[in-house]
């Protein structure tokens, strides 16, 4: 039977320089459960080391989609979501080869790798706030090659969005969905972007603070909250779909 599940598919952890340090895996899962979420995606800036620990912290209480928010050459924020860790790790290797510079904690913030018990496993020293030198087109192809979903983040924002950076969305761009920020929401987004009617819209919290988790949720009609069901919902297969 199909059911509506609460999904927040863009949440940062303390690995993102701009996210609060209290966003460690255990706290994040607890907040998501408090907010009655069924599925969340972990998307740190150009990094993914905490995804495995959020999965471990969640056990079977909550569905975790491992992902990443990549900064493309054009400085577009692009979400990459996967069904498991191996393809994400493969993508991470590519990102690491195409991301340059060292983090400056005083200016940008700490990038902590924290396990499911709340213990610090390490500090990432890459300049995660920076941009890769990979174009959005190449990244979308690579994500698809690894079986993932490619979703431009917060297209309604005036910075780091596909519309601010690239002006418009080409019909051949191959995006699996478009994310609308909580400020605009799906309904308003549909009115504002009528030319993008062909794309599924998602809205997510893009939480950088623990209290923001679940503040913007997409209800998705699925059999269970899994990646494969999500994929079906985005292409409107077998009755699965996003409830707008």
């Amino acid at each position: 039977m199909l059911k509506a599940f609460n999904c927040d598919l863009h949440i940062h952890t303390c690995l993102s320089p701009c996210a609060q340090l209290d966003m460690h895996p255990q706290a994040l899962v607890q907040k998501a459960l408090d907010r009655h979420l069924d599925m969340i995606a972990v998307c740190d800036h150009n990094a993914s080391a905490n995804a495995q620990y959020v999965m471990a912290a969640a056990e079977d209480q909550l569905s975790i989609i491992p992902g990443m928010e990549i900064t493309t050459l054009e400085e577009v924020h692009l979400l990459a979501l996967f069904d498991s860790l191996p393809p994400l790790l493969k993508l991470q290797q590519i990102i690491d080869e195409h991301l340059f510079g060292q983090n400056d904690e005083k200016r940008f913030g700490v990038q902590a790798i924290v396990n499911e018990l709340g213990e610090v496993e390490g500090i990432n020293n890459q300049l995660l706030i920076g941009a890769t030198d990979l174009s959005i087109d190449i990244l979308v192809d690579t994500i698809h090659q690894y079986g993932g979903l490619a979703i431009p983040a917060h297209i309604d924002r005036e910075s780091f969005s596909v519309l601010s950076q690239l002006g418009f969305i080409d019909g051949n761009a191959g995006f699996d969905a478009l994310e609308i920020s909580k400020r605009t929401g799906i309904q308003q987004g549909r009115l504002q972007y009528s030319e993008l009617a062909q794309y599924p819209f998602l809205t997510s919290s893009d939480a950088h603070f623990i209290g923001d988790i679940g503040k913007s949720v997409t209800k998705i009609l699925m059999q269970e909250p899994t990646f494969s069901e999500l994929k079906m919902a985005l292409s409107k297969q077998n009755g699965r779909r996003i409830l707008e």
Partner: protein
Amino acid sequence: MKVETIVQALGLEVKCCRDQLGKEVTGGYTGDLLSDVMGNSREGYIWITRQVHQNIVAVASLKEHAGIILINSSQPTDDTLEKARTEQIPIMVSDLPAFEISGKVFNLLTSKT
């Protein structure tokens, strides 16, 4: 002033549409946010940018720009060049950063008009 004059004066490398260098340049605009360029540039402008994505051609064509100058020796992608040939938008490359090439183009345009 024609695009050709700017190409010659500043030693730009022409990547495509050499036959379109006779286009008249009425002004210039420097920017990497395509939404901003769409909103604020005008017909006949020469556009200076770091973006090399194929969408730059659509923007230049929509705004009827005289041409595009890529900065810091940035190379257009193959699909960008292909689109530029179809839309007949000349793309040039400079090894200078945006600040310097913009200053030089500005000086050329204001000294001759």
